[in-house]
């Protein structure tokens, strides 16, 4: 056992314990650690953003190197602050419109192709998809299960017709698949949360106390 002598390790360990104290009940130590974290994280982000992004990519070219074209993004950026002045607050729509326009233009074709077309291709029963499972003849079975699961889950979300008859059966099967999905997500969530606990315990017992 060799306890760390580093002040940073001690600060980190004590803050970890302060956060863990919330498991017993809310208390000032926990609130201090929480506020400190938010403050430090935001301070770090703002400072880094200013020095590493704004200065080298906008302020320096515009004000030091005299590249006048940079006045355009500068003014567009400044317009974001007009929302604090009620009389001209409508101007904020200009940078918001530009940002939304850019992102929508870039994302609609890309996401349609990657998240819809490709996923539909992956669901269709083809020999390529059977082999993709790398499970021999079981690939066909898994592909059929996925195919049925997707169709039935989609039918559950079809609300324009009462869930009776064929639609009632498929939507009920869909619920089973959705529940299996929720179960998998919950199991993974448990795994993630226990992993976080393990990570902190590894730090406290290893880096701080030197027991492991």
């Amino acid at each position, binding site marked *: 056992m060799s306890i760390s002598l580093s002040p940073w390790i001690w600060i980190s360990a004590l803050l970890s314990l302060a956060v863990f104290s919330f498991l017993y009940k809310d208390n000032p130590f926990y609130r201090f650690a929480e506020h400190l974290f938010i403050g430090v*994280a935001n301070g770090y982000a703002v400072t*880094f953003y200013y020095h590493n*992004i704004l200065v080298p990519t906008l302020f320096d070219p515009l004000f030091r190197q005299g590249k006048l074209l940079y006045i355009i993004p500068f003014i567009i950026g400044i317009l974001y602050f007009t929302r604090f002045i009620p009389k001209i607050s409508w101007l904020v729509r200009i940078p918001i419109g530009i940002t939304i326009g850019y992102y929508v233009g870039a994302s609609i074709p890309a996401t349609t*192709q990657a*998240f819809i077309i490709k996923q539909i291709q992956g669901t269709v029963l083809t020999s390529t998809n059977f082999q993709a499972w790398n499970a021999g003849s079981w690939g066909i079975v898994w592909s059929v299960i996925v195919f049925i699961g997707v169709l039935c889950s989609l039918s559950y979300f079809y609300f324009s017709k009462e869930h009776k008859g064929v639609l009632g059966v498929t939507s009920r099967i869909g619920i089973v698949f959705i529940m299996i999905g929720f179960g998998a997500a919950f199991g993974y969530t448990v795994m993630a949360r*226990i*992993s*976080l606990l393990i990570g902190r315990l*590894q730090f406290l017992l290893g880096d701080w106390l030197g027991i492991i």
Partner: protein
Amino acid sequence: MKFIERLTTIDRRIIYLVLAIVVLIPLISRSPERVRVMPPVEKLYNAVDTIPKDKVLIIDFGYAPQDMPELEPMGFALLRHAFEKRIKVLALCLYVQPLGLAQKALTEVTEEFNSVAQTNADSIIYGRDYVFLGWQPPPLIPMLGMGISITNVYPGDYYGNKTDTLPLMKYVKNYNDVALLVSLSAGSIPRSWVAYAQNRFGVAVAAGVTAVSAADFYQYYQTGQFTGLMTGMKGAAEYEELVETRLNIKKSRKASEALPSLTYGHLVMIAFIIIGNIGYFVQRKRRQK
């Protein structure tokens, strides 16, 4: 019956305490657990292993402190693999918080190799073997921009060097020179890499994700959009296992060491769920009577 009623009203602090003890004991006793490597991780390992000499591996370090237990071991294992095979690496971040953690991983793994290196050729040299590009917001800009020119998107690296002066960047121009991009992320960023970098420029993308988001990513592995996939601490342990057994690199394996605790933690959770359900159904039966 009082006992059954108590089962449904166990104080959450008792559950926390039991969980903490169960997780703690295997960590201290260091009970080993065999790691069984699953196909998604093995595929990722093979993809990294077969990167040609004239191509690079991009690692997007996307984990913040709260994701470290799951994603940091993946980053270390990937870097050890790449450096051992002398695969050139470009590291980058799409957010601010991971920057320090990425630098830590790069520095520590470089130090591991350089501490045993005999010659300059054996060493891992910054600028020659790897480059840390740093951070360039917003994420869409580097994702699309690197398809045209990496040095245009990142005129300077994390340390303030001009990227076009670095030896590695002389022949790495854009995605055409990238064999694989691995995104280590706790969010949806790996999907964005698929949508923008792979969909438009054809880059092979793989991911290391936290367990909580794993269920959202398997469909991309099934369709082949992800070359490989590591999920949570288990995925990290699998990659560590491959790096140790196939490359004979015996270093600290934080994820593998944690697996027994993870297993027992799960068993406790399952036990509490069963106990809670027994209590619920017994009480419901009593009420019906």
